[in-house]
């Protein structure tokens, strides 16, 4: 007998309610509260939201752009890697997955620290470029820039993109591919008409995951972004801690979240439109 609910679900759902659902709803409510003399008071004002749009509008767009660049890079690179591991690597395929898992658990802070040492003024990259004679003094723009933030975010999030894409590529059967080949499809046609349409769900979760986590990050831009690579997450932190403006911090968090959701809905719609079956073809 199947029901809609089971008592075994209670502990996990209790954690979800107590540590996630209720806190998130309360945090949303706080965005309409006000602060007087450093005391947070229940209220119903849009001041924090006005501050989000007025002061942080541009930064939100920059943050979305960094998230979008990271998400797209992770999805494309993740697809190439997963495709190679699935179809081209033969017996090394499993080894590639182990390498992915090591990168996944390589430590969030450790990775940012590694990039800081690689891209820094007396870091490895500048040493190498100077040894090769590409430049005679360290290139300052390698670190503390939007590019540095994107490189480190792609490095951190690539495993999260590879795994769902690989999982969906595992469901693409070799028989279908060979059938397409035998019917005269070229390599590019096999890719765009057989493999990509069948791995669309994996591609989308890879993009969603890497885009959301990149757009919401604050540690990477803090350590690698300098002033030109700032992201909204840093200012969420700033409003909460230094400014003690919890309503503003809350409005910033949810503003970013809503902006991300709108952008993802647009992208989902766009990709559905691009991937629509050609006119006249049986679906």
């Amino acid at each position, binding site marked *: 007998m199947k029901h*809609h609910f089971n008592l075994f679900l209670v502990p996990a759902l209790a*954690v*979800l309610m107590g540590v996630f659902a*209720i806190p998130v709803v309360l*945090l949303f409510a706080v965005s309409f509260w006000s602060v007087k003399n450093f005391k947070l008071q229940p209220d119903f004002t849009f001041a924090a939201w006005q501050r989000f749009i007025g002061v942080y509008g541009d930064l939100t767009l920059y943050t979305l752009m960094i998230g979008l660049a990271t998400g797209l890079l992770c999805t494309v*690179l993740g697809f190439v890697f997963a495709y*190679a591991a699935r179809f081209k690597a033969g017996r090394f395929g499993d080894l590639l997955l182990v390498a992915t898992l090591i*990168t996944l658990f390589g430590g969030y802070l*450790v990775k940012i620290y590694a990039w800081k040492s690689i891209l820094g003024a007396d870091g490895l990259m500048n040493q190498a470029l100077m040894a090769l004679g590409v430049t005679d003094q360290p290139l300052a723009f390698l670190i503390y820039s939007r590019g540095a933030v994107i490189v480190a975010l792609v*490095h951190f999030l690539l495993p999260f993109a590879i795994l769902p894409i690989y999982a969906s590529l595992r469901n693409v059967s070799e028989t279908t591919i060979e059938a397409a080949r035998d019917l005269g499809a070229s390599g590019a046609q096999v890719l765009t008409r057989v493999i990509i349409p069948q791995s669309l769900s994996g591609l989308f979760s890879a993009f969603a995951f890497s885009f959301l986590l990149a757009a919401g990050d604050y540690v990477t831009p803090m350590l690698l972004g300098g002033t030109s690579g700032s992201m909204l997450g840093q200012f969420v932190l700033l409003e909460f801690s230094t400014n003690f403006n919890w309503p503003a911090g809350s409005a910033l968090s949810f503003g970013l979240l809503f902006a991300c959701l709108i952008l993802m809905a647009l992208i989902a719609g766009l990709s559905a439109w691009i991937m629509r079956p050609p006119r006249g073809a049986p679906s």
Partner: protein
Amino acid sequence: MDHEAAPWSAVMIWRIILAAFLLFMLGPILLVVLFSFGSNALIGFPMGDLTLGWYERLAADTGFHSAFWTSLIVALATAILATLTGTLAAMGLMKVTPAAARGILSALSLPVLLPPLVVAIAIVVLIVRGLGLRLGLPVVVLGHILVAQPFVILIVMARLQRFDQSAVDAARDLGATRLEAFRLVTLPQIASALVGAALVSAAISLDDFIIASFTIGGGNTISTFVWGKMRTTLDPSINAIATILLVLTVGLSALALRVTRYKG
């Protein structure tokens, strides 16, 4: 797809592409490990003499000791509790309609999709402002259970789906109570998945920085200890701490992979 022998150049191109990927993915991590054994303070060549000096310095650092034990306690508590809530939920999800299971699973996975910063701040607002309680290790553990339990559910459900329910029915027909049937029939068969799920939960807990740094109140985990050092200077002992953390998390997840893959 090797049914028609691929041309040699295509094979070479794929090898070069994969080598570039592995260099990008593993290179930065390997550098940190390598330089934890070098006497030079900064990452850069030449790396100086081989030394265990940074590790010796850590071994004498009481701040690191307490961070290390705090991390282990939090990881252990997370592993046990998340495995408990996640396994129960996985068993519950097997008993509800597929539509309900999909909806509940998505809801339980939602915390992993939101930025950890937002989740962490929301928890702090509830604990401090909503309930007037103090932050501390129990709050960190709760936050880690929230993030780890969806992974436990996925691992255990994958095992339960391959599990023959008729063995439990047979045990029940032969007079076993529900609990006996679970302990004697179900548990031995899913034990390896449970161990794997517990190890993954511990790895998630050890790797987390954001939730821990907001909810810990006072004291340090290994991650927040590293953060303290990263903020001030590029302290070279970070390489050694990072290597220890890496050995712990990669070791735990490799172990989890072995346990679930080879015995399950």
